């Protein structure tokens, strides 16, 4: 297969309407960063409210803040970024000239942008933005309890964004399955690509449930009689959580893949237990589609025992993946770059999120902790202290490939340590708050509760996180202005994307190296080392002879 580029049009049009998967993914990441800043600002407002024990915003405004913070971070930041990174790197990692369905990928990008604008434009309506949490609880989200256009805009926005994500998932999956270069068999695909295959399978077959749920919610709001009574609420939540739990893994697997690539590269070792990792990924992603009702343990109407069993069973594939990571690091020649530090941070902090997840997978314990700050802490340890660390690791790792320039390591390490301190200071106190009975989504708590100290600590932590993000932004600006060229492969990495120029050309590769394993560049280096060793021994033998 060969590829020819049709001559391009004007510059600005090219960026807005480009079908190049790299441009689409780059634009999506920039927009996601803007949403990240906006969502982070909402979080800072919430933290200010809780540190001051009320008085900063009203209860209604607080409802809007946590709804839009959660919605922004899940629908507009972590999931789109996870998929966008796949959109950028999967074609490169499998040696494809182009993404499958470039127009579809572009359509997905615009659905994401328009959906995001739609969700946020709720703030401009007279009733304010949506305020029924990122789950859009029914009946809290019905026309009686959430009247006004804000909730409708939220519903339409989330539908558009989700549809866009399904389109992206389809493109990435089709690329990995059908556009691989000669020699790139399924069992030679890099670890990150495999995690994207699992992610996109879940996206394509799990996310339509959310669109259906939101369609029913909209019909209930405007027509009535669709989600009625307790059964209606259960049906809505069942559909929502069939999306809502797999999405947690959509926000996890790609970062596991990034961390896997980073660890193998900076340990200078082949990824340990590749086949076991792929099998674990299959088991993990399938299981993660059957744990959703653990969010509904307290309803008492679904089979709690089954969902407790599947939720607890997740530790088996997760354990295999952790074992693979640790075995790859073991006896490796470690290079403690910023990317590697973030990868280690991911491993340690996600473990806290994962272990507390086992507690919540037990119905009797969940009865006590459900809707408390313990759940908030658990969730943020998985998504922020875990996945976001994986994402920052990925940014520091792949930034040279995307831009052609290196990020500053010293600023990167400052970014890392501030984020470690900030994340743990923010989220660890929440475990204690939850265990002591502080429920989530409240703007005020009793003064006699003694919770203000821990809340202040948490708020200080969130300011430290904001500082770390500022350091990251400064790092990006400085690195792009005072450019230090990266070259094609600054890290001595293993996978195909490093075999092309930085940034890659329009159709990705001028020539491909031979592909004989999931680490073709490592193969080449090892072959070169063997060759030079043979030459040395032959020369030595000649001298001795």
């Amino acid at each position, binding site marked *: 297969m060969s590829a*020819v580029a049709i001559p391009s049009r004007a510059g600005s049009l090219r960026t807005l309407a480009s*079908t190049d998967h790299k441009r689409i993914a780059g634009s999506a990441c920039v927009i996601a960063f803007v949403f990240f800043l906006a969502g982070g600002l909402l979080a800072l407002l919430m933290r200010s409210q809780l540190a001051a024990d009320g008085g900063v915003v009203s209860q209604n405004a607080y409802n809007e803040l946590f709804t839009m913070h959660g919605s922004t971070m899940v629908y507009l930041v972590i999931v789109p970024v996870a998929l966008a990174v796949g959109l950028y790197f999967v074609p490169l990692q499998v040696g494809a000239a182009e993404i499958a369905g470039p127009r579809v990928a572009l359509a997905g990008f615009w659905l994401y942008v328009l*959906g995001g604008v739609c969700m946020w434009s709720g703030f401009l309506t007279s009733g304010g933005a949506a305020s029924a949490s990122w789950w859009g609880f029914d009946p809290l989200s019905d026309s009686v309890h959430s009247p006004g256009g804000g909730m409708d805009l939220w519903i339409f926005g989330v539908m558009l964004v989700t549809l866009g994500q399904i389109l992206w998932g389809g493109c990435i999956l089709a690329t990995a399955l*059908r556009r691989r270069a000669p020699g790139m068999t399924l069992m030679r695909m890099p670890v990150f690509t495999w995690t994207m295959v699992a992610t996109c399978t879940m996206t394509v077959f799990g996310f339509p449930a959310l669109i259906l749920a939101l369609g029913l919610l909209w019909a209930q709001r405007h027509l009535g009689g669709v989600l009625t009574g307790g059964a209606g609420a259960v049906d809505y939540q069942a559909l929502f959580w069939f999306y809502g739990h797999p999405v947690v893994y959509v926000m996890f697997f790609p970062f596991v893949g990034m961390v896997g690539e980073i660890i193998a590269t900076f340990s200078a070792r082949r990824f340990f237990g590749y086949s076991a990792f792929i099998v674990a990924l299959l088991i993990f992603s399938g299981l993660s589609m059957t744990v959703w009702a653990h969010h509904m343990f307290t309803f008492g109407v679904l089979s709690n025992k089954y969902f407790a069993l599947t939720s607890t069973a997740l530790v088996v594939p997760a354990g295999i993946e952790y074992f693979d990571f640790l075995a790859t690091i073991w006896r490796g020649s470690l290079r403690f770059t910023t990317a590697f530090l973030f990868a280690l941070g991911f491993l340690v902090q996600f473990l806290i999120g994962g272990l507390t997840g086992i507690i919540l997978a037990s119905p009797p314990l969940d009865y006590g902790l459900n809707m408390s700050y313990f759940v908030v802490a658990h969730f943020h340890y998985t998504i922020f202290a875990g996945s976001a660390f994986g994402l920052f690791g990925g940014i520091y790792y792949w930034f040279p490939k995307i831009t052609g320039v290196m990020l500053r390591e010293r600023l990167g390490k400052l970014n890392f340590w501030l984020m470690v301190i900030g994340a743990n200071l923010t989220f660890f106190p929440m475990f204690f708050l939850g265990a002591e009975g502080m429920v989530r989504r409240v703007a005020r708590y009793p003064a006699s509760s003694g919770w203000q100290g821990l809340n202040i600590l948490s708020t200080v932590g969130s300011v430290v996180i904001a500082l770390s993000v500022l350091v990251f932004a400064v790092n990006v600006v400085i690195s792009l202005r005072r450019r230090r060229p990266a070259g094609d492969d600054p890290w001595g990495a293993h996978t195909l994307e490093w075999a092309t120029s930085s940034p890659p050309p329009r159709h990705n590769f001028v020539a491909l190296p031979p592909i004989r394993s999931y680490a073709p560049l490592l193969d080449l280096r090892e072959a070169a080392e063997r060759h030079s060793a043979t030459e040395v021994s032959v020369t030595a033998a000649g001298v001795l002879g």
Partner: protein
Amino acid sequence: MRRAAIWLLAWGAWLGLLTGLQAAFAPKVIQFVIPGVASAACITSGLVLWAADRNRDPDERSRLITDSSVATVTLMVGVALALVGAGFGLWLILIGVGIGALGLGGIVREQRARARALRGGGTR
């Protein structure tokens, strides 16, 4: 490439097995239906992919890479407006449908241009 379907078939079968396991736990119908539909959709996709790849020759044709598609953007703006119009009135739906139709026409035009370029023997 025929092996590509294995992933979808295996994943769909695994999800189907997990869905079936619920039978031992006195489940509600909805517990079966939602993952069951996802599992069936995945297996069906796998079978379609397997059948499509079965008779596919290695593709040696030149592939044209379109650099941009304003029509796709137009179509998506139309879709978004038409959807939001469901909450804000028929007028917005009609505007959305109109813009969407423009976009759709543009995509047809792009496809015809692409076919012409391929017939014209794009260089390899």
